[in-house]
């Protein structure tokens, strides 16, 4: 163990430098009386590393109209979550290692405001929760690596709106509370990666089918899908663990000077359900109700490239997805499920300059091919999303201000969420965060009527 011991008592003497007088500026050792105790060797020589994070986080609705019981419940302070997140890295030997990270949390709001109209689903979800965020076993041999367990594998080169990076379901339960580029939900994945010449190869399987995490039934963001399916005796559940339900992927990538390139192929069940509607009681009292939920297998081939020029990284991606499904119509009524192809593309840039900060801008557009011939019941021919992310650090990276904007449709008519955030590292152990999320309602189901659900999220973190 090597220790650096100096004493904290001395503050540096003030030394003034002029253009011609620099000889004396080194007269005093600036660290002579600074006492530092740092374990410089242990951190990298021991085979395991255990760390913890304690977190207290609150969510406050800033502008609820309180016009319903649900809005009343989610007005003001709607969450006071305390969480413990342990993480363990253990290198068993030169080639075998394991990583584990979890979260145990409880939300005290159900004790602090017990009389509100919390839904059972929300209480079940939030009152106590345990989440395995990572649990992997890795083996490494020369340039090849095998890894299996709960983890995420990221494909594509775009940050926020990649058309390749769709291996995992996304956490959309409370839009904007998770960074746009960190919404992937980890799942049991096996991946092997290595190099063949100058080409990197990555291939693997996501073993469990995953759904996007939608807002919980009975909360102010509830889209109503759960209750609609409940009434029809249906529910949203992941497909069971089976070979037929696994996702598989393969990726080739490489570097040519300032250009990074990547080709991806993915086959997996959809993360979003296709709800088949049917007609019951034909005749004057006929009604259209859900009759089945499908998760079609979608196959995607995609290419991506990024090019760095000065302080700007340009990014582009394109993908063709087959096997997507939607319901066609017959005389305006629900008819058969039909499969179709979708072409998607992303364009964007990442500007990074120490004085100005980092600006990421991305636009994703997708289009259903042969749309007119399909006569679909409830699917738009084209969809667009765009995202802006701005961040700037101050005070030696202890204070970071960031802004994010995610909009649906080119003119943002689908709605948008915009957030301003602040992260402040008090020291290596304590951090405070705050984020204000402004929702602007629109056609997108998740933001429908969301104007009065703006949130303030504040948290304190202690790491050791």
């Amino acid at each position, binding site marked *: 163990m*090597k220790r*650096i011991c100096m004493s904290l008592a001395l*503050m*540096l003497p003030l*030394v003034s*430098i002029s253009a011609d007088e620099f*000889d004396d500026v080194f007269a005093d*050792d*600036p*660290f002579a009386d*600074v006492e*530092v105790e*740092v374990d*410089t*060797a242990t*951190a*990298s020589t021991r085979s395991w*590393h255990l*760390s913890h994070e304690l977190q207290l986080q609150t969510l406050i609705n800033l502008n609820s109209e309180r016009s319903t019981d649900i809005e009343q419940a989610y007005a003001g302070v709607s969450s006071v979550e305390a969480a413990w997140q342990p*993480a363990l*890295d253990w290198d068993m030997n030169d080639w075998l290692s394991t990583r584990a990270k979890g979260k145990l949390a409880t939300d005290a709001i159900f004790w602090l405001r017990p009389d509100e109209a919390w839904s059972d689903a929300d209480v079940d979800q939030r009152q106590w929760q345990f989440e395995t965020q*990572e649990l992997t076993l890795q083996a490494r041999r*020369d*340039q090849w*690596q095998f890894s299996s367990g709960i*983890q*995420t*594998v*990221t494909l594509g*080169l775009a940050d926020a709106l990649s058309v390749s990076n769709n291996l995992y379901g996304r956490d959309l339960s409370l839009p904007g509370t998770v960074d746009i*580029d*960190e919404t*992937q939900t980890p799942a049991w994945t096996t991946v092997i*990666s*290595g190099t063949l010449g100058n080409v*990197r190869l990555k291939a693997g399987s996501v073993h469990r089918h995953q759904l996007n995490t939608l807002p919980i039934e009975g909360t102010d963001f509830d889209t109503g899908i759960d209750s609609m399916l409940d009434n029809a005796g249906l529910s949203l559940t992941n497909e069971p663990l089976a070979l037929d339900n696994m996702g598989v992927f393969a990726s080739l*990538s490489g*570097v040519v*000077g*300032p250009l*990074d390139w990547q080709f991806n192929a993915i086959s997996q069940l959809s993360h979003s359900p296709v709800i088949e509607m049917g007609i019951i009681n034909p005749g004057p009292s006929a009604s259209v109700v859900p009759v089945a939920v499908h998760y079609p297998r979608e196959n995607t081939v995609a290419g991506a490239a*990024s090019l*760095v020029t*000065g*302080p*700007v*990284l340009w990014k582009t991606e394109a993908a063709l997805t087959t096997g997507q499904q939607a319901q066609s119509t017959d005389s305006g009524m629900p008819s058969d499920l039909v499969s179709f192809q979708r072409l998607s593309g992303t364009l964007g840039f*990442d*500007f*990074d300059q*120490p*004085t100005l900060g980092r600006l990421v801008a991305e636009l994703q557009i997708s289009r259903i091919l042969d749309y007119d011939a399909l006569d679909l019941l409830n699917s738009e021919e084209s969809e667009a999303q765009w995202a802006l992310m701005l961040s700037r650090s101050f005070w*030696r*990276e*202890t204070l970071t201000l960031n802004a994010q904007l995610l909009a649906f449709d080119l003119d943002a008519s689908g709605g948008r969420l915009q957030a301003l955030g602040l992260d402040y*590292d008090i*020291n*290596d152990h304590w*951090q405070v965060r705050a984020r204000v999320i402004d929702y602007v309602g629109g056609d997108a189901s998740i933001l429908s009527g969301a104007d009065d659900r703006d949130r303030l999220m504040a948290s304190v973190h202690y*790491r050791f």
Partner: protein
Amino acid sequence: MTLRLRTLCTLLLIGPTLAMTADDIMTRVDQNETPTSQRADMTMILLDSRGNQRVRSIQSQRAEVDGVERSLMFFIEPADVRGTGFLMFDYEDAGRDDDQWMLLPSLGKAKRIASSDKTGSFMGSDFSYADMSQRNLSEWTYTLLKEDSVNGVDVWVIESIPVNQDVIEKTGYVRSIVYVRQDTYQVTRGISYLEKSGEVKLMNVSEFTEIDGYSLATETQMVTQKNGKTVHRTLMKLDVQAVDFEFDPDDFTLNRLEQGL
């Protein structure tokens, strides 16, 4: 003995040093033998003006692969960034930007970083990315100001001025004073004047260690002053594990970066 002969003998006795120009000295500095590969644990202690400490521990290795200086680093501490990695290709050609990638372990993703501007702080320390890269000789003009001594060792004091505005924008420095040891041609101190008005950085190598025939800077101080007042300090300690070890060029690739810590 004639005057001419005495003069010649005197010149021979005091050695070649007086005859050297600033350019000669800095060329010798640039030609100093360095390990072809090096593996080390780096610890940076960051102190703000109130003496509050932050610690950054990094596992690093570097090597010259096909004439390009490649380095691979992984964060050990603090815990919230543990496993974050950097791969850098530092090209000798002054006109070519470095290639840099960063590994985000939580996403299992290595992404390219634009790196033309090196004025930013390296991990919140007083060292900038420019300080961590090799300085290209042709981007500066040198003037020998005087000779002096530091801790009993004779040094040359040399002024460096960027050759154009591009270099200033890339490094953030408008002028530097470097102290070069006359015995080993190593830079032992430096004063760098930043483009930001009133900011000056003082660099001092407080420890050289002899490792396998190389004299390596194993403890370096960097102090930032603004208008004469110390605003931040960094002490960088290098615990060198190995030099000139046999390496596989594939250990400095994007694939290796993605394998993680």
